[in-house]
């Protein structure tokens, strides 16, 4: 499927503004070309099969199209897209558990159990072997996986995550601390 190459030079943020302004569905194809592989692979990380990852990807792109007007440029567009993708995938994985990421009250209440998780040196995580890291990540809950990917793979700052997940600073730090502790625990279990 061809898309207009004259838009290829546009920065993501300018392209999005143009799509929102003109509601030109074909322009969305340019955005698709830029993000399809990353989004598909991120969805695959939460899916049980390639077919499921394909369905998730298709749904994420529709969701993205409908949510584009809500992008306000407070973070990089790529960070916003990946956050939207993780949020969609986590809600999909947890759809039967009534543990939607959008439930801010529940997430804020988690701050209380901070003491239950040991502080993990970030350097220990960044020295992990990638093959073992992949297996340890697969063993984590979807929401722990999502926040670790946002922070360490997509390089979102704590402030970005606050904005993207509509959480306070302490809640973000708590969730990161908990996810790091669980990751190290899983990693150490592996041979």
């Amino acid at each position, binding site marked *: *499927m061809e898309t207009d190459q004259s838009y290829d030079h546009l920065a993501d943020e300018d392209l999005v503004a143009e799509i929102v302004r003109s*509601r030109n*569905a*074909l322009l*969305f*194809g340019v955005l*698709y*070309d830029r993000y*399809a*592989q*990353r989004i*598909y*692979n991120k969805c*695959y990380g939460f899916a049980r099969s*390639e077919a499921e990852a*394909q*369905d998730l*990807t*298709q*749904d994420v*792109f*529709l*969701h993205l*199209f*409908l*949510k584009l007007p809500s992008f306000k440029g407070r973070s990089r567009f790529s960070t916003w897209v990946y956050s939207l993708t993780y949020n969609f995938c986590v809600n999909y994985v947890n759809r039967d558990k009534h543990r939607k990421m959008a439930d801010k009250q529940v997430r804020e209440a988690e701050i209380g159990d901070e003491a239950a998780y040991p502080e993990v040196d970030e350097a220990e*995580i*960044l*020295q*992990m*072997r*990638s093959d073992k*890291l*992949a297996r340890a*990540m697969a063993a984590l809950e979807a929401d722990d996986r999502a926040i*670790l*990917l946002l922070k*360490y*793979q997509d*390089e979102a700052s704590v402030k970005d995550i606050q904005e993207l997940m509509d959480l306070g600073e302490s809640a973000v730090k708590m969730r990161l601390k908990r996810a790091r502790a669980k990751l190290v625990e899983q990693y150490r279990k592996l041979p």
Partner: protein
Amino acid sequence: MSQKNPFKELEKSLLEVPPEMKQKVMSDIATARLMLDIGTLMTYSGPESLEQTLRKRRKKKD
């Protein structure tokens, strides 16, 4: 974090997106655009209704 980040290593062997995916996505977007333009679903819950409708339609096709 810039010297060697194992999370970045995970992205080095990416799966290829099935070529037919773009056609499917663009078909969804065209339908969404049409429905939004018609304005019949321009209530506060319009986008959510639209996503559900398209998903149900796709599942019926499968």
